[in-house]
């Protein structure tokens, strides 16, 4: 089965996000004074072939831990969906 995968990588809570805070600081100048908690992450999309959803998820988790994220500073949220042949 083919699954489409979306991995959302975010810095872990407590890890400084200078990009996010720089964006946040610039917003009042642009006329958006009420925005807070800006965090910048990465969105990674791909497709994976696996026997079933459980197998696909476990492979993606492994991939995230070993390569797509650095677990010391980042967390990954995984969304996974079976691709239905058209």
């Amino acid at each position, binding site marked *: 089965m083919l699954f489409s995968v979306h991995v959302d990588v975010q*810095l872990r809570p407590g*890890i*400084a996000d*200078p*990009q996010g*805070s*720089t964006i946040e600081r610039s917003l009042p100048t642009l006329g958006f004074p009420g925005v807070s908690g800006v965090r910048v992450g990465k969105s990674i999309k791909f497709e994976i072939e696996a026997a079933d959803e459980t197998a696909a998820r476990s492979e993606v988790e492994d991939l995230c831990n070993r*390569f*797509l994220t*650095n677990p*010391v*500073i980042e967390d990954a949220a995984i969304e996974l969906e079976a691709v239905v042949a058209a």
Partner: protein
Amino acid sequence: MTARVGVVLFPGSNCEFDVIEAVKTVGGDAEILWHGDATINGVDAVVVPGGFAHGDYLRPGAIARFSPVMEAVQRFAGEGGPVVGICNGFQVLTEAGLLPGALQKNRGLKFICQMAELRVESTECVLTSATALGDVLRVPVNHFEGNYTCSPETLAELQGNDRIVLRYVTNPNGSIDDIAGVCNEGRNVVGLMPHPERAISALLGSVDGVPLVRSLLQSVATTV
């Protein structure tokens, strides 16, 4: 016997010839190790130099750590061989799990290129054995992601086991506990953000990198 130092070259490394020059200036021999070869050619010590290996894509060091040469470096480090990661090389060694922690973007989101003062906090490792405790060395830093971070448990372990080998006198990048360089448990793997290879000649502003390179060359005699 002249110590032979292997300097790993990834696509995007840019300090490899500076390291080779520095090693030769201090009396060693040095050669390039190609990232695609699964061997370190029998060298006595390995330096992973600075630069932007694989364009720093995904994260600095994330792709470089899977290079064939890194398996050989891992094995060498496991056998007690001296391995030093400078700047991007430090990032590669943390990604490879040879050193704890990670390097995040500098506090202030600025690329920093300046002279830094480093205090020797431990002389018990392959990069500082020829220095004296408390020595202050002037060595340049040149990085965007040099803000060292780790879990509170890891920090306690580093502090408790004398594994923080260099600290910034004035913290330029937000590194936790002013950390500029750390070593592994075996004290044969060291990572640091500053560039000792750029502090080898008075003409370039400092010769304080010399004792660091000399330490590495001397460590060969004791570990091989």
